[in-house]
């Protein structure tokens, strides 16, 4: 049996768990190709025009998988990974949207994912899949437990400072890497963005590589553990309803206030609702703290040159002021 998983959205955070989980159930896993023009175009065609770019891309990945001769496509309903907080409505409504607007209803494999922290390996989440997959409760339990170990390993590596795709690779290879620390004199930039924006090379246009080529040390939200960030927003009377947005908020406030970075880049996708508020908060924080801040907004047509120029100009500026 073949299970399709899109290389999009939370793949860059939970992919290591899901892939491992299905493989350990003895199933074949097909992961769609890295986002490319054809995939995007497929998505644009079916998605409502105003929806955010990552969801358009995701739709493209689903349609691509649907043509790839897989038995099921995994479309989890991400509900909550923190008490009284949720996922962006687009995640919570995803299975509904896919079921009613894309044409592969029979192939949808879905379950609700609920947890009280970012670790979503509780096997009960996945029991609804058992019947379709022809597995027992015990199979599911064991696979989830094993997959959890892989995921924790992956998360450990991102916390050592490796970008998620690299950490994934290190985990699969069973390596034991060392922590990445900024070298003396190196420019340090906080890159704030959702995993699907930062790590999808088509959306981010390889912003990671560009920064690294410019000898920049990069910190992202997923390089922190949940506990490190937990109390950062303590003095706000209210945080956002969406956990990943709050991760960014927490990482952002932490970086603005802990003297760890020389500048901050907010990477956001066109049409993202939560980011409109996050961006404003970062902007105000930057004014208060005097730390340079730049917003990079990508859409389905962003030109690479444009992005490279802006990012390089920003790092040059930081280098100059650091040299003074």
């Amino acid at each position: 049996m073949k299970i399709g998983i899109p290389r999009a959205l939370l793949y860059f955070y939970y992919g290591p768990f899901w892939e491992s989980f299905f493989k350990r159930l003895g199933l074949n896993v097909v992961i769609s190709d890295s986002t490319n023009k054809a995939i995007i175009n497929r998505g644009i065609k079916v998605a409502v025009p105003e929806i955010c770019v990552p969801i358009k891309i995701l739709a493209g990945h689903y349609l691509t998988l649907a043509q790839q001769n897989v038995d099921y496509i995994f479309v989890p309903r991400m509900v909550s990974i923190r008490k009284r907080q949720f996922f962006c409505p687009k995640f919570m409504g995803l299975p509904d949207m896919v079921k009613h607007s894309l044409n592969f209803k029979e192939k949808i494999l879905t379950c609700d994912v609920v947890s009280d922290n970012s670790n979503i390996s509780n096997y009960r989440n996945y029991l609804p899949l058992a019947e379709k997959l022809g597995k027992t409760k015990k199979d599911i339990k064991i696979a989830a437990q094993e997959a959890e170990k892989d995921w924790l390993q992956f998360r450990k590596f991102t916390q050592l400072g490796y970008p998620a795709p690299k950490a994934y690779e290190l985990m699969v290879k069973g390596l034991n890497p060392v922590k990445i620390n900024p070298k003396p004199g190196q420019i340090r930039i906080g890159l704030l963005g959702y995993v699907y924006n930062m790590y999808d090379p088509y959306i981010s246009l390889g912003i990671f590589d560009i920064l690294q080529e410019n000898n920049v040390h990069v910190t992202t939200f997923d390089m922190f553990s949940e506990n490190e960030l937990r109390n950062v927003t303590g003095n706000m009377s209210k945080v956002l309803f969406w956990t990943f947005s709050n991760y960014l908020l927490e990482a952002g406030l932490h970086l603005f206030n802990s003297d760890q970075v020389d500048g901050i880049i907010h990477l956001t996708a066109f049409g993202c609702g939560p980011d409109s508020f996050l961006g404003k908060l970062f902007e105000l924080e930057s004014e208060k703290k005097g730390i340079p801040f730049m917003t990079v907004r990508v859409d389905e047509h962003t030109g690479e040159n444009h992005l490279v120029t802006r990012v390089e100009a920003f790092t040059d500026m930081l280098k100059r002021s650091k040299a003074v």
Partner: protein
Amino acid sequence: MKISFPYMGTVLVYKKLLQLLGHEVIIPPRPTKRTIDLGVKYSPEFACFPFKVIMGTYIEACEMGVDTIVSSGGFGPCRAGFYGEIHRRILKSLGYDIDLIILDQPLQDKNFLKKVKFLKGNNSWLDVIKAVKFTYRLIQEIDRFEKEIYRLMPYETEPGQAKKAWNSIQAEFDQAIDQAGLERAKERSLDILKSIKVHEIPEKDKIRIGIVGEIYVVMEPSINMDMEELLCKLGCEVERSQYLSEWVDHNLLPNIFKKSRDAMFIEKGKPYIGRAIGGHAQQSVGAIVDFKDRNFDGIIHLMPFACLPELISQSIIPRISKEHNIPVLTLAIDEQTGQTNALTRIEAFIDLVRNKKASVNIA
């Protein structure tokens, strides 16, 4: 202390409640082009449209010398729950030193009691309860009359009659300050209602349109092209999926005795959107099904441009429309809502609904 609130729907009820509690109330101006321009100018570019209009309203209220604004946080849960946090910061950066009090669901808000105590002022709790009860009845009555108005308006013999009646009815209720006053207002309003002269239209020729969508753009006529009136002028009876009294029923009252209309919408929406995803998406799709069950002929779906949950409903609506055989027109509302363009689309849509009904009648 001068106190105000965001502008949404029949604002006299918010005014009433605050006045009954002894506050000096300033009603913010009905949103105009200027309100929207101000809101757009000072809001994040990609903030939702309701956020921008409310931003503009707050600024205008501040210009009028207001020092306290009361609003509700949880029209969601969605971005709306966070509006206040950003509004407050923006107002501060503009130099307005005001208190923005956001009332949330009591259980989730550590400061709920403090806020309520502040609003309570020197009143006894008994007086507060009385005021709240009275306001609740007031909303229910007003909503009932509003529904009637938009049922009659399409058939009025003299254009403008129903609108005038609606204004007089609101004025009547504005006078009421106690139960007896409310009864009086009710009686007079019934007379006013009766005075509207209407053409007799055979049942089979009546066109009924339901308006569904995000609460702010559904409830606030100044930003949705006066949708109800507009549809009435095109000869349609109109009902919305949201009325203030129902919002109260669903969000503030325990549903022990009767199921709120919202709860029923959610039930009917479930086959399409399996769980609450934020905003009113589930209600929107459920309301479409419900309007169809009640033999409505068409649906206007209103959403703020790029509204997160309503984009999900928008994606699913073509399927619902097909499965339930009811035409639906989705309109995204923002500061650029081109009146003429939207108007053409609405007229064409109503023609389509009318033709569809006519062909069914013949068959």
